[in-house]
């Protein structure tokens, strides 16, 4: 990591065969910093088609419609709480300035680490164009919850897939990052998503008793409800620009997107005054819950729920209860209590 361009790469990386100014503009012939940087484009791949599309036209075009670029998931995740007037205010004052300012350019994954909370770790490897380097790219934006759950850095049990040597792209192939040419409203609508049964079809799982257990719970309990190894991060109290507090827990409740299914829930940090500074009171705050179905990335074959039916069927150990709900949270949360 760092900010120094490796001169050795210039002869080796085909992306660097053109002059720096072919992507970054500026004036390479200038003799002082100010003149050299006149007209500089710091992040050329913010415009994927112009920067990368000359050689990678299909990927670049698809990427402009992908969720990593549009950040549409953030917009649609909260818009259900807004009146029509508030939606317009959100679009004008919040979305581009705040949510979408985090969109990833091509370079954020292939050249440099994305800047998170103002921290810029710089180039992945001397401005080399790398195919993938999850710990320096994915982990930066998804480092609040998913990645440290996956590696165990958060303090819990590392994901079994991580322990077997798998990385992000083994389940999330490049097409998911680059998009497939469709502008999806959020990740739940994406056509091709990772699924446990892609690699672990139920008919091939384990001995007869295990098959019976899976058949009994199929469609009624998610995989993660039983196979989440340990506590994962729950977030609360997010205010515009002031961040969130977090606490670890396993929470089981009804899937808000499929109430017939019991699944792992994650507390999402939206509170009634989240957008107060932007003049948005969230007229329909109670229309959406604060808990959403999630797949924690600390999966294990055996957990206290797979070992002992009583963990859920007698004790209901991790079930969402009314007394657990944050004060003043959405009334819709009550619908998720099993």
């Amino acid at each position, binding site marked *: 990591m760092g900010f120094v361009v490796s001169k050795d790469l*210039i002869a080796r990386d085909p992306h660097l065969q053109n002059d720096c100014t072919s992507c970054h503009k500026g004036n390479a012939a200038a003799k002082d910093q100010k003149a050299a940087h006149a007209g500089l484009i710091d992040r050329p791949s913010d415009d994927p088609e112009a920067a990368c599309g000359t050689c990678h036209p299909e990927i670049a075009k698809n990427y402009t419609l992908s969720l990593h670029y549009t950040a549409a998931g953030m917009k649609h995740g909260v818009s259900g709480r807004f009146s029509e007037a508030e939606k317009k205010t959100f679009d004008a004052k919040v979305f581009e300035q705040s949510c979408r300012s985090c969109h990833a350019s091509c370079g954020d994954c292939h050249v440099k680490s994305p800047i998170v909370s103002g921290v810029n770790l710089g180039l992945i490897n001397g401005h080399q164009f790398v195919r993938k380097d999850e710990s320096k790219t994915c982990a930066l934006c998804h480092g609040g919850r998913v990645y440290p759950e996956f590696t165990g850095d958060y303090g819990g049990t590392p994901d079994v897939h991580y322990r077997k040597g798998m990385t992000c792209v083994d389940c999330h192939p490049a097409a998911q990052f680059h998009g497939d040419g469709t502008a999806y409203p959020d990740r739940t609508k994406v056509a091709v998503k990772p699924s446990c049964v892609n690699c672990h079809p139920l008919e091939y799982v384990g001995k007869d008793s295990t098959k019976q257990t899976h058949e009994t719970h199929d469609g009624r309990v998610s995989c993660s409800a039983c196979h989440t190894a340990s506590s994962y991060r729950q977030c609360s109290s997010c205010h515009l620009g002031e961040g969130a507090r977090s606490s670890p827990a396993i929470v089981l409740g009804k899937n808000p997107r499929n109430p017939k299914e019991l699944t792992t829930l994650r507390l999402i940090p939206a509170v009634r005054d989240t957008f107060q500074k932007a003049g948005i009171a969230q007229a329909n705050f109670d229309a959406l819950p604060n808990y959403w179905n999630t797949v924690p990335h600390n999966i294990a074959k055996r957990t206290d729920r797979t070992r002992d039916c009583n963990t859920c069927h007698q004790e209901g150990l991790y079930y969402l209860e009314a007394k657990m709900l944050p004060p003043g949270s959405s009334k819709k949360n009550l619908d998720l209590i099993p």
Partner: protein
Amino acid sequence: MANNSTSARAMLLVAFFGAGALCAHAASSCVDCHGDPATMQKLVAPPQSGGAEEGEG
């Protein structure tokens, strides 16, 4: 004498292609600064410690 002549030719070739390589690199003076650790250390401030925000998840 023959050896001297061969050496001279070799030196000419090295000089010719070497200069070409230098010219190719010199096409962009950006790396004069951006490829120099000492210069970049002076120009790039250490990262500020993060705010209260966290990653997307």
